[in-house]
């Protein structure tokens, strides 16, 4: 099609039938708003259900005692809450250092080809089905040690966690202007110190956001835990034994044929969703109101000799 023909086509199209076009535009807008509504309804329904059912069962006793006999409606889910927090702690201990260092390597050390390659594999690994990590940890640790244990769970979850942290760290570091690095090198500061003391501080907001989002992601994972920490009814007795966590409890209870057990499941869901929402809201707060943290100017002042 030649240019003039094309112009003619445009003109004919835009000159005619204005009314019809406006109506069409209105209809599309309504459809689009309906799309948003349809997507929000499930969220509303999920939150409403979890809160409505969960609030009935939650009490001080529910949060602080061990589970009673299945379906008896006695006891609580204290061990699962404890397990979830222990899992978060152990996973973070493995996942955060590896993730942050990997992000540093890609952003600061790697040449562009290697960096691209590693970034690509981090992206791919982020999308692996989580159950595969569970199988891997089972084969790699549980079978070797001969028992279900917390380290297997923590390693499975940290494999989900570290690519997320690596990517967000890398992005956060890339946002820092090169003048920061140059200023550091000009003072004769070794590269490692430039990274650790200057760049990490400047990128703090972004890195913390990534860490908290990855924690929120792993706290709700169920599939890898089925084959690594299995679940139990007792308190934490060391890292070499089976343990419970909130998602596992919800799964087990929801499949039991007793109403009481299912109600416990809803209670556990409310606790889990509260933890996750608090994490997400704090990220929101960090990003919106505290962006920059100590502020780029502050870092600059400190490096250039301003005493604090």
């Amino acid at each position, binding site marked *: 099609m030649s240019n003039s023909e094309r112009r003619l*086509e445009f003109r004919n199209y835009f000159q005619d039938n204005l009314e019809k*076009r*406006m109506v*069409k535009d209105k209809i*599309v*807008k309504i459809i*689009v*708003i309906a*799309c*948003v509504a349809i*997507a929000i309804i499930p*969220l509303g329904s*999920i939150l409403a*259900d*979890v809160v409505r059912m969960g609030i009935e069962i939650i009490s001080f006793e529910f949060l602080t005692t061990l589970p009673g006999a299945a379906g008896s409606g006695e006891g609580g889910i204290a061990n699962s809450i404890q397990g979830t927090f222990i899992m978060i702690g152990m996973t973070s201990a493995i996942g955060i*250092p590896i993730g942050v*260092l*990997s992000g540093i*390597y890609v952003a*600061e*050390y790697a040449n562009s080809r290697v960096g691209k390659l*590693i970034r*690509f594999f981090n*992206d*791919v*690994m982020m*999308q*692996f*089905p*989580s*159950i*595969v990590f569970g199988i*891997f940890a089972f*084969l*790699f640790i549980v079978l070797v040690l001969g028992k279900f244990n917390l380290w297997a769970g923590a390693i499975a979850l940290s494999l989900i966690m570290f690519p997320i942290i*690596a990517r967000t760290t890398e992005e956060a570091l890339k946002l820092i202007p090169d003048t920061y690095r140059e200023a550091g090198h000009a*003072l004769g*500061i070794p*590269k490692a*110190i430039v990274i650790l003391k200057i760049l990490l501080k400047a990128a703090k907001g972004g890195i913390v956001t990534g860490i908290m989002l990855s924690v929120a992601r792993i706290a*709700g994972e*169920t*599939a890898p835990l089925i084959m690594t920490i*299995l679940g139990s009814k007792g308190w934490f007795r060391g890292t070499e034994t089976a343990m419970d966590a909130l*998602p596992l409890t*919800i*799964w087990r209870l*929801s*499949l039991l044929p007793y109403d009481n057990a299912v109600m416990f499941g*809803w209670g556990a*869901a409310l606790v*889990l*969703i509260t933890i*996750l*929402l608090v994490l*997400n809201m704090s990220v*929101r707060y960090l990003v919106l109101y505290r962006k920059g943290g100590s502020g780029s100017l502050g870092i600059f002042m400190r*490096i*250039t*000799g301003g005493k604090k």
Partner: protein
Amino acid sequence: MSRDLLAKKRNFHWDSVFKITATCAGAFVLLIIVLIFGQLMSDSWLIWEKEGLEFVTGDRWNPVEGREAFGALPYIAGTLVTSLIALCIAVPLSIGIAMFLSEIAPTRIREPISFIVELLAAVPSIIYGLWGLFTFRIIFKDWFESPMHDALGEHIFLFRDAPFGLDILTASVVLAIMIIPTISAVSREILLAVPAIQREAAYMLGATKWEVFRMSVLPYAKSGLIGASILGLGRAVGETMAVTMLIGNAVGPKAFPLGFFQQGNSLASIIANEFNEASPVSMYFPALIGLGLILLFVSLGINVCAHLIIRRVTNAHEGGIKGF
């Protein structure tokens, strides 16, 4: 402060220690991917040796010792069918949401709506499963599945089975709800990346918002939106818990998905359900690991495609009004 930093220069070897540590951390991801593949392959070796390609194309599933037969076809099909149905539902909705967020919504309500959509992504799979099992399934059966079955069951084989609530369609719809946040968040980024000049050119000609979107934004963003959808497909393929709770968990030939209201099974779902029942010394165990390996390959293929497409799009900058 600066003097402290300078003093550390003398410990120059720490610098290279740090560099080596960071390099190891960077290489860790490659190591882990190789390890995962190696481990899954070596532990499922027995089943490939025994069943060969039959393992992928067969449909029998019998873990009883002495009469063992393992075929993964119904579960591969179940995974693909549920994910594709979910994609068909989720993609139009997600693109609608992305369009609302990038083109139509006033700036004031963009942030809150994006936040709500992101919250949907933060709800864990298991809670979607719980909600699906006790709330959605019942509503969906009474208001959609039963009427559809009554109206079309005799004429179209897809609607033939009597709806029970735990079936392929329920699992697919919940999957769709779960992948909408992923697809719409990426799509929104891609639509926002379309240069303003592209829109302004169309507005200048007197186009309405829909025409601007259709003529100058959509052609420009098309391949990016396809990439976003494939990313959503990748997520759907790997979803475990919600599917396990809703798909009905049939095994053997009858798990092959031939109707919307039929009980099926997916790769991730059968692994989650049966993993702890299998003894590590039987054939049952390598069969489940083999399913995991197939799942890994399916998801790897889908995700590599998605990333390549998305990267190609985000690297391309130029463009005029295309595709009119």
